[in-house]
């Protein structure tokens, strides 16, 4: 059976797994974005706070994904929860770091003017600083998403949803019928989905980044 035939034959299941894969990654990225931006907002004014937050997030990233999952399974059991927790933790670094860099990079003259003409603290943050840091934050989310697409495959080890199951089962059945096709289909699926998400990020940037600050 060719790969093509295999995909045609298992289309329904692959489509469902693809959908679950993307959904898991996107949800984890969004959750990490909320947490990462909050952390970034909390620390960006303090160089020490910024260094600590970035350092902690980097440390998480150095933990091998298998090890992290192994640590999380006893806490959350098998299934989507440990997978999502791991993905969120990994996504924190690029998002938090980019939020801090983006906010710290806002021209002080602009925030000074914003305050000077009578914007309140919250307005300055939401209408000026975060809007100006948004391209950086979005770039952080994009990197996080790309990273998570791969890590989500590994998360199938904790019985998380997605294409990881295909890859794993294909690899463990190496030699038997369609084992290669299964692993390949899973891997190619991840690559294609990752490219599709790149396209989505491009469109989001196009519609949410002001023309005045678009690169």
């Amino acid at each position, binding site marked *: 059976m060719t790969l093509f035939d295999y995909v045609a034959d298992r289309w329904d299941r692959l489509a469902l797994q693809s959908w679950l894969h993307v959904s898991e990654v996107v949800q984890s990225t969004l959750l990490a974005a909320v947490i990462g931006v909050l952390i970034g907002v909390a620390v960006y004014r303090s160089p020490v706070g910024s260094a600590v937050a970035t350092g902690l997030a980097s440390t998480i990233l150095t933990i091998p994904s298998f090890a992290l999952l192994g640590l999380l399974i006893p806490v959350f059991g098998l299934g989507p929860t440990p997978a999502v927790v791991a993905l969120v933790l990994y996504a924190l670094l690029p998002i938090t770091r980019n939020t801090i860099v983006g906010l710290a990079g806002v*021209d002080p*003259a602009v925030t000074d*003017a*914003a305050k*000077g003409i009578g914007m309140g603290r919250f307005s300055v943050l939401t209408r000026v600083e975060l*809007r100006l840091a948004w391209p950086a934050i979005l770039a952080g989310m994009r990197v996080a998403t790309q990273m998570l697409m791969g890590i989500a495959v590994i998360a199938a080890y904790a019985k998380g949803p997605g294409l990881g199951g295909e890859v794993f089962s294909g690899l463990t059945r190496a030699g038997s019928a369609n084992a290669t096709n299964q692993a390949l289909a899973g891997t190619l699926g991840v690559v294609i989905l990752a490219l599709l998400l790149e396209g989505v990020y491009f469109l989001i940037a196009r519609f949410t980044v*002001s023309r*005045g*600050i678009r690169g």
Partner: protein
Amino acid sequence: MADKGEPAVTPESTDAAVSGVEIQLEGVTKRYPGSAEPAVNDVTMTIPAGQLVVLVGPSGCGKTTTMRMINRLIEPTSGRITIGGEDALELDDVRLRRKIGYAIQQAGLFPHFTVAQNIAVVPGLLGWNKKRIAERVDELMDLVGLDVAQFRDRYPRQLSGGQQQRVGVARALAADPPVLLMDEPFGAVDPITRGNLQDELLRLQADLGKTIVFVTHDFDEAVKLGDRIAVLGEASTIQQYDTPEAILANPANDMVAGFVGAGASLKQLTLLRVRDVDYPDLALTADAGESPSELRTRMARAGATYALLVDRRRRPQRWVHVRNLSSATSLANIGRSVGDTVSTQSTLQDALEAILAEGGRAVVTGTRGEYVGMIDIETVTGVLAQLREEHEAAGTDGAGDTGDGAGGRAAAGDGVGPAGGAGAAADPGAGAS
């Protein structure tokens, strides 16, 4: 010679509607945490309603700190600030700032907002409705000289530095605040653009009559713009607070003198216009139709060696020496043409330039280019001497014409100089130069 607490009246501000309010600083001090010396030490000054007051002083002397305490971007350590009689320190700081225009050196425009959106921020914060905001934006762009159709939807990065500053000023004026704070707003643009922006600020101010606190380290800019100048020393201590004329004529101390720098007299000349001084009607004029012999008789009677030929509208054409007349059959085509002339609108500095170029005296022309008199070097030096005398006596009255602005304050009540009267009175269009 510090704050003399004079009443807030100047002759110039009477023709503009004063929409500004008085600002008072009383014993204002700012001590930054962690520094032993105060950045601003016990400053007391009154900024009269409707006047443009310049805070000038060397870098780091505390000008910015002083200014930012007025809108409480910096909280004073001690002292009292009142704006229009209201205690600024009692008000909610964010609301206070919406009533105080704020423009800074780098303009600080919101890069993600269009020009129109930038200008609309404060009206938006104040809850104006969309239609009113849109009208106000158009009005302001007009006011600061930006074409609405062309610039409305541009982003700041699509503007030159000068245009950005214009938007910055428009944004500061958007909600028509009585008070405007400007921190070196023209410090980062090229000299020609800076000159234009200064002229336009003066023009605006002549119409608006805001109370403006303008910070600069450039004394020439202070002289050009200020109704009054506060020369600040270390920790914002006021070295002299007076009209530009008074400071130029009589610096209070060595620090001020050093700041005024070389060429104080020349700077004074930029503050005065030819129409402000007495220039004599010395020249003997003749028109080309007169016969040479007739003119010679007149010149002999007047003891003049030169006559000024004027055209039918009395515009100066040529100088004729009495020698040229004996052989001439007509006044057409004889003599040498008149070089540089000065108008009654010219500054005395321009006049001096023309006088030097013409070898001692220059022809003064009225608003339509007609001959009205002559100005010579003695007139100029006499004016300087008189100014110095006036200001040396302690009673400087601040009543001098500080106007150097393009049009603005200068446009009002422009007539013909004291020695004039040559035909100008009959022209209803005079003054519309």
